């Protein structure tokens, strides 16, 4: 949808994006501090007048050598890293500011958003008196109320606790799925990213190093170093087939059932589940007498080194790719090699709720 | 000695020349400070270090005399001149009724004797009521001159002293019977009662040399 081909230079830093295309859905922008994430967002919105090159939204050229669409006409919603609530307006009037200027555009109503982000108790307050996390929530609400054609979010949930995040993420998912607003989402938190995003873009020192579908990139051992060893891990999709009596939900993957803590979703829905490479244990034989319920038969497809002591093992389980990170010693002890059949053991509860979400590729296409 | 003379603005240029002559003759110095007569009076009352005053009127020195300063004496008589730079030289005062004269400048009658004189002359010529709407006022005779000279007012009653020779257009010295005499009095102030320069300068004002200068600046002599 959005194509960016732009260059901007500061003293000692250059952002350059060659033929970068942002697909619809949620694209996570992941990279180290100072790698140029915020700058890229600013370039897309048109806030960096110094940027040279071309930005186009579908057929609509926002910026090229001869033309420049000013930021307020691009229809972009922006959640700034530093919130930027208007200090002279109450929370209610900050929200109304956005709402009024987006009258008639399709999207959630003010009340919806106040509810979803639990902003009710804050409405009469001055932004200066809000806690860090409360400010973030207001800023998210305000950006959503512009009913943007595209949403740029710069670490929107960084100041929030896990519980708050868990409350807000479903709302963003609904936005993604029901309204279909494309989102470019900067985060240092891979759990958020995998839950929301279907595309992943890795940026390093001002250059896009990897860009592609989330599940492919996460299961790509080559991208693992860029993600950090703790974050590597595949995303698989499964169908919710049953809610069992003891509170577990049963999901059917391509090869075997997975049992996870109760998932509040209709039977038959497709779910995305992230399995961190470090949470997968490999066994040659199907083990018994273990508390782990989830044992997936798989075939080793690739083994690559991942640091001194560990290897990254890519497994194929039906159509799904799974990554497992095991010590060299274990790999040797098990005699792992490409093509070998084995069992991937996943602790059910090690799949964090934040890693589960409806598969929007299935529901929204 | 050095004396500080408070001089009404309309007489400032003449006073400066007189001071130079006085110094050449006696070796005494006279410094000039100017201002409107009313302001000078307020300052004198507040203890200003002025040794003598050359007022633009007779009333203020009289008042000062009554308050215990020296004796007032006239040093010059102001001449009121009607000036209309864009009118032909041979016009008459009735030209003020002409539509091409949109504004007539006079000094503020409440503040400046020249203003009171202008008002009196206009009244006596039975022109005042007809031209009331055209009147604009300067706070003193210097401002009044500026109003006419800049062209903002097409005509005005000014001091002959202000014209200083270079006359264009219609200039008429208003006949003295149309307005009360503009007697300008000088007075030795309490601050200057022991100041030889101050006393000397007051005496010098009556000398022939000084009277020549005063006349040259457009004043009549007392």
């Amino acid at each position: 949808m959005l194509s960016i081909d732009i260059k901007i230079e500061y003293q000692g830093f250059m952002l350059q994006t060659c033929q970068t295309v942002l697909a619809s859905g949620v694209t996570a922008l992941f990279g180290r501090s100072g790698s140029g994430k915020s700058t890229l967002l600013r370039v897309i919105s048109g806030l960096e007048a110094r940027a040279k090159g071309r930005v186009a939204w579908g057929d609509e050229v926002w910026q090229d050598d001869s033309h420049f669409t000013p930021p307020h006409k691009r229809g972009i919603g922006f959640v700034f890293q530093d919130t930027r609530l208007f200090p002279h307006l109450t929370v209610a009037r900050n929200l109304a500011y956005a709402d009024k200027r987006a009258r008639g555009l399709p999207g959630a109503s003010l009340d919806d958003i106040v509810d979803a982000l639990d902003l009710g108790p804050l409405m009469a307050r001055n932004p200066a008196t809000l806690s860090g996390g409360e400010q973030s929530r207001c800023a998210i609400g305000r950006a959503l109320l512009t009913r943007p054609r595209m949403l740029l979010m710069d670490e929107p949930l960084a100041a929030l606790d896990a519980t708050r995040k868990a409350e807000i993420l479903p709302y963003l998912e609904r936005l993604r799925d029901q309204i279909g607003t494309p989102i470019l989402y900067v985060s240092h938190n891979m759990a958020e990213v995998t839950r929301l995003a279907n595309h992943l873009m890795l940026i390093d020192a001002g250059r896009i190093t990897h860009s592609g579908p989330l599940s492919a990139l996460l299961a790509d051992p080559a991208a693992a170093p860029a993600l950090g060893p703790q974050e590597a891990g595949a995303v698989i999709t499964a169908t919710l087939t049953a809610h069992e009596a003891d509170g577990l939900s049963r999901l059917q993957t391509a090869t075997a059932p997975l049992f996870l803590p109760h998932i509040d979703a209709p039977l038959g829905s497709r779910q995305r589940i992230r399995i961190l490479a470090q949470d997968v244990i490999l066994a040659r034989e199907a083990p018994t007498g273990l508390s782990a319920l989830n044992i997936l038969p798989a075939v080793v497809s690739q083994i690559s080194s991942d640091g001194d002591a560990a290897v990254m093992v890519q497994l194929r389980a039906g159509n799904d790719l799974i990554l497992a990170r095991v010590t060299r010693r274990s790999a040797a002890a098990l005699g792992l090699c490409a093509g070998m059949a084995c069992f991937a053991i996943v602790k059910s509860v090690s799949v964090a709720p934040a890693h589960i979400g409806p598969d929007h590729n299935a529901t929204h296409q | 000695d050095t004396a500080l003379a408070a001089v009404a603005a309309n007489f400032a240029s003449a006073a400066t020349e007189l001071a130079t002559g006085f110094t050449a003759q006696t070796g005494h110095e006279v410094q000039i400070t100017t201002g409107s007569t009313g302001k000078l009076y307020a300052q004198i009352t507040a203890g200003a270090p002025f040794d003598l005053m050359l007022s633009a009127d007779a009333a203020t020195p009289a008042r000062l005399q009554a308050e215990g300063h020296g004796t007032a004496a006239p040093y010059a008589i102001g001449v009121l001149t009607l000036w209309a730079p864009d009118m032909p030289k041979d016009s008459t005062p009735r030209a003020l009724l002409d539509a091409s004269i949109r504004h007539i400048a006079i000094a503020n009658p409440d503040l400046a004797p020249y203003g009171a004189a202008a008002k009196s002359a206009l009244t006596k010529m039975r022109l005042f009521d007809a031209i009331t709407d055209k009147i604009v006022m300067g706070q003193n005779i210097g401002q009044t001159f500026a109003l006419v000279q800049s062209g903002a007012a097409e005509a005005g009653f000014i001091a002959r002293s202000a014209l200083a020779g270079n006359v264009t257009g219609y200039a008429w010295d208003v006949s003295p019977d149309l307005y009360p005499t503009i007697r300008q009095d000088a007075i030795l102030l309490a601050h200057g009662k022991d100041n030889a320069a101050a006393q000397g300068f007051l005496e010098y004002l009556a000398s022939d040399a000084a009277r020549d200068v005063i006349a040259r600046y457009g004043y009549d002599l007392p």
Partner: protein
Amino acid sequence: MTLPDLGPLWLTLKLAAITTVFLLILGAPLAWWLARTRSRLKPLIEALTALPLVLPPTVLGFYLLVLFSPNSTFGGFWVQVTGETLTFSFTGLVIASMLYSLPFMVQPLQSAFEAVGRAPLEAAMMLRAGPLDRFFTVAVPMAKRGFLTALVLSFTHTLGEFGVVLMVGGNIPGKTKVISIAIYEHVETINYADAHVLAAILLVFSFATLLMVYTLNRRFPSGGNT
């Protein structure tokens, strides 16, 4: 003791009010431009803006008189276009007062606009606010204190100044004779009692107004970056 003629007071208030309003309309965009421009002309225009203050009011008035006079190009042009002279007219007073009070409007506003910074304006852009919209809904309210300062300085300065006004206006009762001239006249004619009364009226009135303005400003603060 009888109350002196209050006509000049109303005229003064009208002049000060109109001058301040026009100055606001003219000065706010200028200050806004100055606060944000990267033009090399900026220091030049800033310096020019402060310049009217340097000349004594009467002298500035004198030069304006020359400029406004129908004999001058500008003054003549004005007469041709409007049929009226700028000198000795209320319009002329307003223009002269505006010029003289310009620095008091522009400088505090510029400094307040600069303190607002780019961040909130960028935020407004991303909320679909166009340039004018941003100016009125973000820049102006956030620079509120600067507006207060600018308005108070411009208004009171126009109330009190008369040097310029006197020269250009010709002190015509009911038309260009403002209260400051009236008080001045009383002082000059050694009519101190009337001067005291008028000055007291002006002071009390102004003080009451200012007190009200500042009290309201305190009671209804518009947020602000505490």
